[in-house]
């Protein structure tokens, strides 16, 4: 017997009899002989929980967990603190073992937290509608571009080179299948060159995509970029934002964004070696019937009770099939619950406090690390929680040395931007302490 199989040998005999078959093999007689697998799979035999646990623990221990290291690495995934309540709520099996809420009568828990999530995302971004999530920040940008192109019936998508490089690579992959033209705008001193942007926007432009804080941590002038984007006819201005930064920065909805997307990992979701994270998407009402993915709406039941259902499903693949806006079906479900619990736990003042502490500690780190002049700021522009430093030393050498001191160093910008050779991008969250920053500084000085 196996722990997750509940049929006894006696049951099996009774059930076969009820079906009118003599053996389990007969259940598979409809599979043509030539495609039957007439051997065992080349895998190990089944194991006990104790054995599986021991083996996977051995693998986990080969990694350097951030529990033993101090992390100054960000670049799209951040070491923010996750309050205990988050894991306790998402561990409730009524949530995590449920399916997509197609039967509203027994899914009000899921439906209501998605409704709360949509509200929180709208309030945070200053937008009117939010969907129930997309896979991650990168694919959210791609989906936003596809939606904007479909709405405008145009093919040109302009994206700044200050958008996270991996997100731009995903956009290129998606753009290829829809024959979209991706036009990249250069950067000037670390931010989008708005003069260049001005010269690129025209009536063929479906969308302009800007990230703020951008990949280098710098705050972009979204308001001005939106104005430029809107010079195009039916051009969507898409802003990709760090939700934690909205604890202190102006909401993109007030700056002219039509569509706001971003990576929600910072909101209570562990780093987990890159996933699963949380893509969010919010927009103006005009896009409501074009948004990809699920949306929950409020309604009333037979007795007039407030209740929640999946709505506007005419957009979705299971109804519209080949005419659907997107093919997304499974989304980030449980991670939207994590983000919801995170945001309400932090609340009005907590999120602002996380953003403020991250910023103040990042500015302190920048000051401390550049004090001696050995490391210089790559840019002199306002930033949020990440900043780039340059020096004569190769990033590989620096990061190796830091690793020996149990510090995860920053991101080597030269990998994606050859012009920024020997530049490292450091991230500082509210979790870092003055002592950790000072220690990073003294080790860097010693290299």
């Amino acid at each position: 017997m196996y722990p997750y199989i509940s049929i006894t040998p006696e049951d099996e005999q009774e059930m076969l009899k009820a079906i009118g078959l003599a053996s389990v093999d007969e259940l598979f007689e409809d599979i043509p002989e030539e495609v039957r697998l007439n051997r065992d799979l080349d895998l190990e035999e089944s194991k006990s929980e104790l054995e599986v646990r021991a083996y996977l623990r051995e693998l986990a221990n080969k990694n350097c967990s951030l529990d033993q290291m101090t992390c100054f690495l960000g670049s799209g995934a951040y070491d923010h603190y996750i309050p205990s309540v988050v894991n306790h709520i998402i561990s409730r099996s009524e949530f995590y073992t449920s399916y997509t809420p197609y039967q509203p009568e027994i899914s009000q828990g899921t439906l209501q937290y998605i409704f709360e999530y949509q509200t929180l995302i709208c309030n945070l971004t200053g937008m009117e509608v939010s969907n129930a999530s997309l896979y991650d920040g990168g694919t959210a940008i791609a989906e936003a571009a596809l939606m904007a192109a479909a709405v405008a019936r145009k093919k040109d998508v302009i994206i700044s080179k200050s958008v996270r490089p991996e997100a731009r690579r995903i956009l290129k992959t998606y753009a290829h299948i829809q024959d979209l033209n991706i036009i990249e705008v250069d950067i000037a001193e670390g931010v989008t060159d708005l003069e260049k942007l001005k010269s690129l926007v025209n009536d063929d432009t479906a969308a302009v995509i800007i990230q703020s804080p951008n990949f280098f941590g710098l705050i972009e002038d979204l308001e001005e970029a939106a104005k430029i984007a809107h010079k195009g006819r039916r051009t969507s201005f898409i802003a990709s934002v760090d939700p934690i930064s909205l604890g202190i920065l102006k909401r993109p909805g007030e700056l002219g964004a039509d569509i706001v997307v971003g990576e929600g990992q910072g909101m209570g979701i562990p780093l987990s070696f890159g996933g699963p994270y949380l893509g969010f998407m919010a927009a103006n009402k005009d896009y409501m019937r074009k948004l990809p993915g699920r949306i929950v709406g409020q309604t009333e039941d037979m007795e007039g009770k407030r209740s929640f259902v999946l709505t506007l499903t005419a957009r979705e693949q299971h109804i519209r099939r080949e005419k659907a806006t997107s093919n997304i079906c499974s989304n980030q479900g449980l991670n939207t619950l994590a983000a919801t619990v995170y945001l309400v736990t932090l609340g009005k003042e907590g999120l602002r406090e996380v953003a403020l502490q991250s910023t103040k500690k990042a500015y302190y780190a920048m000051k401390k690390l550049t004090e001696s002049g050995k490391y210089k700021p790559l840019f002199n522009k306002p930033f949020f929680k990440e900043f780039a430093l340059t020096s004569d030393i190769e990033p590989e050498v620096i990061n190796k040395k830091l690793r020996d001191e149990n510090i995860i160093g920053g991101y080597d910008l030269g990998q994606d931007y050859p012009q920024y050779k020997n530049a490292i991008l450091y991230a500082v969250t509210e979790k870092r302490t003055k002592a950790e920053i000072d220690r990073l500084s003294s080790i860097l000085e010693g290299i």
Partner: protein
Amino acid sequence: MAYDKLIFELSKEGKKAYRLPPLDVDDIDVEELIPEEYLNKEELDLPEVSEVDVIRHYTNLSNKNYGVDTGFYPLGSCTMKYNPKINEDMSRLEGFVNLHPLQGEDCIQGSLQLMYELEKALCEIAGMDRMTLQPAAGAHGELTGLMIIKAYHEKRGDSKRNKIIVPDSAHGTNPATAAMAGYKPIEVKSTDKGIVDVESLKEVIGDGEDIAGLMLTNPNTLGLFEKDIVEIARLIHDAGGLLYYDGANANAILGRARPGDMGFDVVHFNIHKTFSTPHGGGGPGAGPVGVKEHLVEFLPTPMVEKDGDRYYLDYDYPNTIGKVKDFYGHFSILVRAYSYILTMGRDGLKKVAETAVLNANYLLSQLKDDYYLPIDTLYKHEFVLGGLKGDNLEATTLDVAKRLLDYGFHPPTVYFPLIIREALMIEPTETESKQTLDEFAKAMKEIAEEARTNVKLLKEAPHNTIVRRPDEVKAARNPVLKYEG
């Protein structure tokens, strides 16, 4: 009275659920660091609640949900099997959960090894040569697979192929994916036996010059094995197209048959179906995509490789379709899946398929007296009924589904596949006991009897749930998509 608050309705000025240590660096006014024009001057529009409020609120919401841990969940094509608890614990091991994706390779050897070994195991199960673990879900796997098919044709300079064939019984994601990938989906009819009509397929293929490929679920959405699969594969390959395997129903064939041996060139698995990872109320799942040797060069990067004892990320794929997702996929979901594969092993996985098929055919044998069975044959892991048996019955499949809620069961998938009228698509999975199946069959029989004698009970169902048939038309006509206070 059931709990009926929204979190926003618990908010009261001054409440807190969170506390940070005091700032230990220079407390410079943020206006001195960041120009005022960028700063939000208003209060954030977030609630103010205590930790007790948070826990009580979401615990109350969880009580309004039904999960696999609550009871039987026979949703066809969704494979709602039990989610083993050790998998959850393993995904939360410190070394896996507190790991940044961009840490240096010497810091992530354990994760890379896990991905390397999982890929090998999944390839063996699927009969494929290589597999990318990057796709986030089944539909994302489909999209990745069609991108690979597109890249294959493009590299050969074969630019006329603009159509993807999809059976009329396919999941909605198949035609949606084909359209999203820039193809025109073409439907192929099923026979009255519920499988792909080979003659109709030949007609759809025509001279074959514009066929990029075929997407097929096998067993299909009716729960039937496509017995002509070898012939279907030959027809598509002869036309120059490629075969895509939608792995939604792979639970039926684990260790018994492999898509690779059937002639499929590209395969995706739904990790959250076949490999027991939780559905999480709609995600996150994972949708790895496997390919045969001739398509390996197009896989998304990076792939995990091994050099001696060292594992590394290989980006050296000049013909790659590119990246389809941030980082390397849904790693913590993949940890759960590997934990499951290790636990079940080669013997257990085969037993999974055998028991899933046994359970489905047994349950069918208990229901066909009272429910219409359009195609009376041997099924695999699921079967599709065509509503209640009998003439002039007022009760519909929707009524049966809603009445099942009163009996404490999650209803089956309803009104899908589209080719069966009043469809009730039932997938019990291997984790259910005979007692559970018997109880469900008993409830279904009682409901059939009620339909004959007291149809009002069905029409007004559910009676015992906290809400009853919420008005979906109203929700769509007058959308209220956020709390307005």
